[in-house]
């Protein structure tokens, strides 16, 4: 699938890393990016023009803070839930939207329930990894890099961009919408990607003169951040260009609305972020891997209303997004997947909330999905030593499915191993695993 480009890529990669943040520190300073002639960089990028050629798109939605799986996909028949959660369980169970005899979706996931009824939602139960960490930041990094041993520093989607896509001429192959910084999942020194916080503000307010001046300034910038700065400016200019034409070509076919009252997190512009994603997808910008974030899931206190609000918000944004893609005739290409660093503790705390937990469900949504329940709902009576849910599906099984079955990348090359197959896709583009 991907072309072996050999030592030249490795050299540039090592070279950049030596000068950058994760590596050799002081020694790296001597090896500035400035010493890489442009021709070298161009040749390396040009060598990658035989990557993935299909038009499949992935949208990862991060539910930041640790989403409560037991209030997302709710066990309806287990009396133990009420023992563990005297304050939280009754309302959840009573109002849930049943999808099987045993399981129901949170009552605010109405749109997703209707997609479930159409066979467009896969619920993967009990997703986690061995020896879970309860640190937000460690667990986020594990999910972002796809590496529970914490050695990998590049993101799994960043590696996919770098290894499997022709980045030459397509700097918008990867895109983080509705944020200002590069999400860890997309990070890779070799990956070309853009970050768009707010489309309306994405332009040079000083006009083409300032743009040209800055473009000239940021070339061969010395120092340990030189490559990052130069790439960022070049990508910003490309993005400005692309957005100019995509904005003109795009007519939204759904109502997106951000809930201004929901102030649980600064990351509360999910609808706007997904609308931008829809614009980039439907106008043929070549975008393939997108990442958006909804924050506020760290529900240590007064969880009941807060979590329901978040579920409703997620549901509205995702429903609008699906409707928009469908109306534009591109819903068959796009797979949406949620992820969160961990679930929450089955036993509630004194603040009417829940502390950090472990295994939780992942939702895969879209026409490429073969609807149904996958994995196994974790037992509420057989908890681990920390009082948390045991996992039954390694999260990398889902990555493997996405990479191999949906995008057509080589999952083993990116994840470094093979994992149990789930079969969540209707018609995988390739065999894998």
């Amino acid at each position, binding site marked *: 699938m991907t072309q072996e480009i050999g030592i030249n890529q490795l050299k540039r990669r090592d*070279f950049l890393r030596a000068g950058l*943040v*994760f590596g050799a*520190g*002081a020694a790296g*300073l*001597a*090896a*500035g990016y*400035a*010493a*890489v*002639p442009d*021709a*070298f960089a161009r*040749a390396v990028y040009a060598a990658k023009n035989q990557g993935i050629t299909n038009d499949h798109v992935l949208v990862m939605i991060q539910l*930041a803070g640790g989403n409560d799986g037991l209030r997302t996909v709710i066990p309806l028949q287990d009396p133990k839930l009420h023992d563990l959660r005297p304050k939280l369980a009754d309302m959840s169970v009573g109002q849930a939207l049943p999808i099987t005899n045993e399981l129901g979706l949170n009552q605010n996931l109405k749109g997703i329930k209707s997609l479930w009824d159409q066979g467009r939602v896969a619920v993967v139960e009990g997703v986690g990894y061995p020896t879970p960490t*309860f*640190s*937000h*930041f460690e667990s986020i990094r594990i999910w972002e890099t796809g590496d529970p041993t914490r050695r990998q520093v590049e993101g799994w989607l960043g590696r996919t961009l770098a290894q499997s896509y022709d980045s030459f001429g397509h700097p918008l192959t990867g895109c983080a919408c509705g*944020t*200002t*910084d*590069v999400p860890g999942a997309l990070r890779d020194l070799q990956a070309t990607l*853009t*970050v768009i*916080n707010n489309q309306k*503000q994405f332009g*040079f307010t*000083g006009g083409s003169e*300032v743009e040209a*001046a*800055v473009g000239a*300034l*940021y*070339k061969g*910038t*010395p*120092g*340990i*951040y030189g490559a*990052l*700065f130069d790439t*960022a*400016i070049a990508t*910003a200019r490309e993005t*400005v260009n692309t957005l100019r034409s995509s904005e003109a070509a795009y007519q939204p076919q759904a109502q997106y609305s951000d809930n201004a009252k929901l102030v*649980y*997190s*600064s*990351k509360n512009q999910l609808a706007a972020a997904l609308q931008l994603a829809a614009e980039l997808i439907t106008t043929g910008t070549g975008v393939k891997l997108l990442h958006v974030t909804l924050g506020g899931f*760290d529900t240590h*206190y007064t969880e009941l209303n807060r979590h329901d609000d978040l579920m409703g918000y997620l549901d509205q944004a995702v429903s609008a997004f699906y409707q928009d893609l469908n109306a534009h005739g591109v819903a068959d290409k796009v797979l949406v997947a949620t992820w969160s660093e961990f679930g929450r503790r089955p036993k509630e*705390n*004194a*603040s009417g*909330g829940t*502390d*950090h937990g472990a295994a939780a469900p992942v939702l895969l949504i879209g026409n490429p999905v073969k609807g149904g329940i996958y994995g196994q709902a974790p037992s509420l009576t057989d908890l681990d030593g920390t009082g948390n849910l045991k996992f039954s599906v390694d999260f990398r099984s889902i990555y493997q499915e996405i990479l191999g079955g949906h995008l057509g990348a080589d999952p083993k090359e990116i994840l470094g191993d093979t994992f149990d197959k789930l079969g969540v896709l209707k018609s995988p583009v390739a065999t894998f695993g």
Partner: protein
Amino acid sequence: MLGAAVAGGAGVAAIRLWGGEALQRLEGAIPGHPALAGRGDWNSPLGAEPARVAQLLRRATFGAGPAELERALSDGFGKTVDRLVETRYAPPPEFGNTGDPARFARLNVAQLQQWWLDHMLQSPTPFAERMTLFWHGHFTSDFRKVGLQTPFIYWQNLTWRDMALTDLRSMLKRVTADPAMLRYLDLATSTGASPNENYSRELMELFTMGAGNYSEDDVRAAARGLAGWAEPRPTGTADIVLDPKNNVVRKYPVYDQPAPGMFVAQRAYKGGPFKYLGKTAQWNTDLVIDQILAQPSTAPFIVGRVLEHFVMQAPPKDYVNRLAASFKKSKYDLKTLMRDVFNSPEFTSPAAYRSLVKSPTEFMVHALRALGAGSQSRMVMASASNMGQVLFDPPDVGGWPNNEAWISSNTVLARVNFVTSLLNAVKPLPSAAEAHRQQLDDVLSPQTASALNQARDDRSRWLLVLASPEFQLK
């Protein structure tokens, strides 16, 4: 072809190490000045006193305009460090309309941000503001969870400034009982009977020790030991007319002056002794903090965080450990630590030069100070979110990630646009003739030098200086 390119790259590096580059001197764009010369790499100028002083002001304060730079240069590096560290901070003016008893009932976060930015810009003791910003990112809280119906988030800013250069033990005790923190990490709703782990975990993971230096049992044990805190009580209530037409009045709590949370013994853990970080005792808040400070991981963790903000990305271990030993020996005295940091040879070593990215706040405040444009704090406020740093609103409990995390297509564009707006707003602009020296140490890339040589007026020169990669670094 590729092989030759690699060899060529190595050659450039080798030449650079020997310092053997011929600098061309041409007639420059600024009358009476020779053309600026750039180099393929930024050779550290820190061997010379003026560059050392300028870097100190970039990192320990928010950069400097010509007058402050002049003063520090005449004092010299050592005396400037003494002055920065030893001068008692100038308190900010009281926030809001002090005659209004209900002024904290509906805190306006934009006004609060501007209040702090104005003080960053105008304070005679900007080091205190820089340290307050550092602690705001470290012991972080956000207005969203803390809420705007109390003065708590404002008080936290006052407290962090007040504690910024005391000692870590005293500071941690104040942090634990800080009303905004009690809300932000849920300690105010935690009880000994049913502890909430949020504060306990982050106290160890993010505030003091770092992940991997304690167990999950320790998280639960500390949560028991720390339980018992409650928010301070309001001293009264005030009526606020919400809707004069329909006579809608609401009672809001009133707080007289900043107060820590209250310890309520009935809410504390009632059981017997238990084990925490290897020791069995009847743990309480003070003892938990003492035990954390007795751990070998604590001093290096704090020192590492400080060095990543003030000296270099990924500081070497022996450097961290050396300063950590001194920090611990001083009983965690924060003045000792900061003095050690600035006086360490590493601070002015070539590896430190331009090794840190200015945070958006530093970048913008620095730009305003360079232009003498202290009245433009509103513009800073308006531009902050698109660069990724809104005061009192960090992205999560980890505060703001720093250095390379500040660089993306979105943020560099936002930085350039800020400079464009700023230069439109500031009239008249000061002369830019010395800007490359005062703000960029005259250490320029060939592109920056060449662009400056071609610029024909102050506006163009300031644009290039403030939007340059050199100015994004500190």
